[in-house]
């Protein structure tokens, strides 16, 4: 079947063609088309019966002349050849080289769809990764094997934040990063792709990076393959070669939009905002490929970047992502406008795996309480700030005024930091105590009395004043 070409397409409509007269075609099989001009296109069997096989064509069907279109069924799903040589290479969304170098030749070719990991085989992620960013390490910390997306919006510095994480991420006690990076961009602009390439170059890690690029002007359907190809490479690096892999994917919104486009063509019933009901499961197939496996050394830690349409966190894409990932780092326009970098809005941000990766045996014993206290005090401070906006700061009580100052300092000094500033988690925690010391000990219920005695400097500050 692989070597037979058919010219039996009977109809064509918006990216799909129907083939007659072919029997025994495998569902999900890859298809190669040769059009009238001799150009090759890729496709996928999405429905198979002996009288009609429905094929989705990645590069589109707009100018297809069915009389002169030859179709080959490759009898296998999309596969990615893997070997050690993928490190340092740049591929397109379908896994073909786009760096001008020869294709990867390997007998080991893997189905890009992967197979679901058995939950009994998973190992729970517990190792704290220090990113050097206080808002993350102190309050929303990342662990090895976690999937923690960055929720952002147009014009916000998500790329810079992601690049900073890639540059600085390391385990405690490690001199430098021992991660390899898989970077996937879909629907990205050339400028975005170049930004990351240069950032990897500058930090001298280019030979530890694999890139999969599907740019904004490239086929939409290929966008659906890009994260799958990238994660197939990541799984190989992590679980065959024992690497700790950091996967950065941008932008999940472009991915979901591509999925919607294809769903409309297929005539699938839409659920919310025109997105198909299976968007959740489809995203989960991607995100759940992060993790650790028992008895395996490597790991996949995932940082997907997504822009929230109209900054709306309840939009289906961030919403469904939040329902699947293990937390989210939310960037906010308000902080960004005030010149705070990285503009991490901490209250809606969350790391679900943090509680198991910090504290006594991982970072420092006071870490869980300090994080909780920062959240509580900052939430209270924002309430006070809201009040001050109505009744004027002069009308506030002394206690409330302290909260106002705390909010200010917290945003400038704790959240805000330099793009090259790599704070250790101890620096982060000490800084947190400096700020908490602006508030009286009675107001700090989430830290223990012992911790207050050890770290809180209220008394000292009061005396100095």
């Amino acid at each position, binding site marked *: 079947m692989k070597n037979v070409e058919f010219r039996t397409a009977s109809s064509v409509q918006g990216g799909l063609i129907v083939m007659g007269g072919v029997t*025994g075609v*495998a*569902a*999900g099989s890859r298809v190669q088309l040769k059009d009238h001009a001799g150009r090759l296109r890729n496709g996928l069997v999405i*429905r*198979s*019966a*002996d009288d009609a096989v429905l094929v989705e064509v990645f590069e589109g069907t707009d100018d297809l002349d069915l009389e002169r279109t030859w179709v080959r069924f490759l009898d296998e*799903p999309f596969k990615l050849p893997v070997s050690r040589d993928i490190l340092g290479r740049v591929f397109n969304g379908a896994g073909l080289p786009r760096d001008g170098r020869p294709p990867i030749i390997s007998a080991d070719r893997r189905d890009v*769809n992967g*197979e*679901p*990991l*058995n*939950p*009994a*085989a*998973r190992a*729970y*992620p517990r190792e704290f990764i220090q990113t050097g960013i206080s808002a993350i390490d102190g309050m929303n910390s990342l662990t090895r094997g976690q999937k923690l997306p960055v929720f952002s919006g147009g014009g916000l510095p998500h790329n810079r934040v992601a690049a900073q994480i890639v540059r600085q991420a390391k385990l405690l006690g490690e001199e430098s990063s021992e991660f390899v990076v898989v970077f996937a961009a879909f629907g990205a602009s050339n400028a975005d792709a170049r930004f990351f390439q240069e950032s990897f170059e500058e930090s001298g890690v280019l030979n530890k990076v694999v890139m999969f690029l599907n740019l904004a002007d490239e086929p939409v359907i290929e966008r659906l393959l890009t994260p799958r190809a990238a994660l197939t490479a990541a799984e190989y690096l992590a*679980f065959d070669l024992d690497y700790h892999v950091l996967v950065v994917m941008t932008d999940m919104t472009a991915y979901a939009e591509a999925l919607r486009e294809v769903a409309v063509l297929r005539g699938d*019933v*839409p*659920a919310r905002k025109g997105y198909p*009901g299976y968007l*959740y*499961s489809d995203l*989960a*197939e991607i995100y*759940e*490929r992060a*993790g650790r496996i028992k008895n*395996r050394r490597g790991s996949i830690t995932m940082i997907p970047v997504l822009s929230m349409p109209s900054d709306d966190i*309840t*939009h*289906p894409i961030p*919403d*469904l992502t*939040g329902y*699947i990932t*293990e937390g*989210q780092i939310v960037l906010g326009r308000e902080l960004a406008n005030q010149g705070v970098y990285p503009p991490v809005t901490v209250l*809606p941000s969350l790391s679900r795996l943090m*509680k*198991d990766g910090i504290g006594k045996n991982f970072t420092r014993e006071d870490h869980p309480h300090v994080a*909780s206290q920062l*959240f*509580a005090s900052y*939430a*209270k401070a924002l309430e006070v700030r809201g*009040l001050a906006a*109505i*009744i004027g700061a002069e*009308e*506030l*009580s002394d206690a409330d005024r302290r909260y106002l100052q705390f909010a200010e300092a917290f945003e400038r000094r704790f959240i805000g930091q330099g793009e090259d500033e790599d704070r250790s988690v101890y620096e982060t925690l000490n800084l947190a105590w400096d700020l908490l010391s602006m508030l009286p*000990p*009675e107001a700090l*219920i989430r830290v*223990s009395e012992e911790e207050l005695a050890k770290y809180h400097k209220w008394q000292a500050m009061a005396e100095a004043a």
Partner: protein
Amino acid sequence: MGKILEINGPLVKLELPETVLGEQVRVGAIGLVGEVIGRDGDTALAQLYEDTAGLKPGEVAEGLGWPLSVELGPGLLNAIFDGVQRPLNAVWEKSGDRIARGVAVPSLPRDQRWHFVPDPERRAGAPVAGGDVLGTVRETESIQHRILVPPLTHGELLELAPEGDYTVEESIGRVKMADGRIDKLRLFHRWPVRVPRPFRRRDHAVKPLITGQRILDTFYPLLKGGKAAIPGPFGAGKTMLQQQIARWCNAEIVIYVGCGERGNELTDVLEFMPELVDPHTGRPLMERTLLVANTSNMPVVAREASVYVGITLAEYFRDQGYDVVMVADSTSRWAEALREVAGRLGQMPVEEGYPAYLGSRLAAFYERAGRVETLSGGHGSVTLIGAVSPPGGDFSEPVTSHTKEIIQTFWALSKELADARHYPAVDWLESFSGYVPSAAKWWAENVDPGWEAARGEALDLLAASEELQRIVNLVGVEALSSEQRWTLEAAGLLKEGLLQQAATDEIDSFASPEKQYALLAALLEIYRQGMKLVKLGAPARRLIQMPLLAQARRWKSQHKSEELALLKEKIARIPADFAQIALDYEQSGHTA
């Protein structure tokens, strides 16, 4: 034998004349299993529990002759199954880290021997009926597995095996049925998951399920045999709350169904449960727990089945006379799976793509909860707690709104509370429980007669403070009277000192009913004492500075449930603290 005509996603059209709706089929060279969901002449439409990639028209298909069923017998506890009851540990051994397709492993181990002790009351020649206990197998240290006559078997017990070690498949007895047929009895039997298991009659639920979580037990109680829902946006704490319940509740069996959620959450349960000790039996919690897992990356069709597998397992332990709790995380993923199937069958969507029968399916599912008199005359219960994941956190969406009408206890999680890290983020204004009168009786008899009144007082205080907060947000706190300021302060004390309860706090993760009531009564006492002074004219400003208020906020994390004596001493000293203030205030001639 039939054959495949067409493959369309998880749906296959088969030429297979003799099958009926709901029947299991095996399809293709690799033997994928699925169920018939539609019929048309000689063709059957089936949905497969696994990915159909690679299947070809023309490959074989066969009907298996039975509907989706579970195996019920020793070997269930401690285990983790997938959505169609494949044992994931055995699958792991057989197919490696990733779940290969078409792996067939029996649900219960076939080679393990169990020590069966026949019930001494059972005599050959006597009649037996479905649900009767034939004997027991001590499956784990804490749980006796009672071996039941399958529900539909009635007749004369011809023979019952002596005490000894048997595999689940070996015969342990024979029954002569009314029609003369002879049925073999084994340690296990099968039951179709979509059919509720029979019982004699429904009983009233009477006892509260104690979860150790104050906002649940004290404010919005659930009864053993009751139905509850936990709706909330992502990250609000549905899973944590369900895990807390699975850990601490005073049920005898816990069934944890991970339906379309994260793999790591199940790993988490698998890792912590064996290490935690059941406060009620002193044994590792895993001994009473079993997991059903269809994670979000596993095939959607099996997701629809997984909640039925879970509830059938729950009913089976109920029929043995146990109090069972099933938590389902999340019922929304199940409803979405239902929606996908409906969509593929071309059924008319009515709201947000959901079929018209969403509400009735949900109701029928929750109806399987309850406290019953079992076929053998004992009592057992299934308590059902479903998480709901509304898109965008909007509770007016179909799954949340239908569920709200079905359940009795509603634990509404709020994004605002979660954002401020007020955990559990159960909203005290939005939540409700229809079980308060029954629970009140139990609290009055077992803990304190003042429970119902104290609960009401606390809820009133919280509601009043909400009003006051609105005023403050408009015009500032100075606009409030002293009484109002004190009300606000006392509500804050209740929120931090009582409602907030971190799952991660070793001491406070579980609070016994006694501790719950002691704290509630203590904080209300502070409120009342203060109010008395304020009414006498003492300024709230003065009271708010009392060190007692900061101290009382820490009590929950300082006193274990087993060691309440010290806490009670502190409580006894509350009036003295206020008396001191009253004295100072008097002496200073009302000018303070």
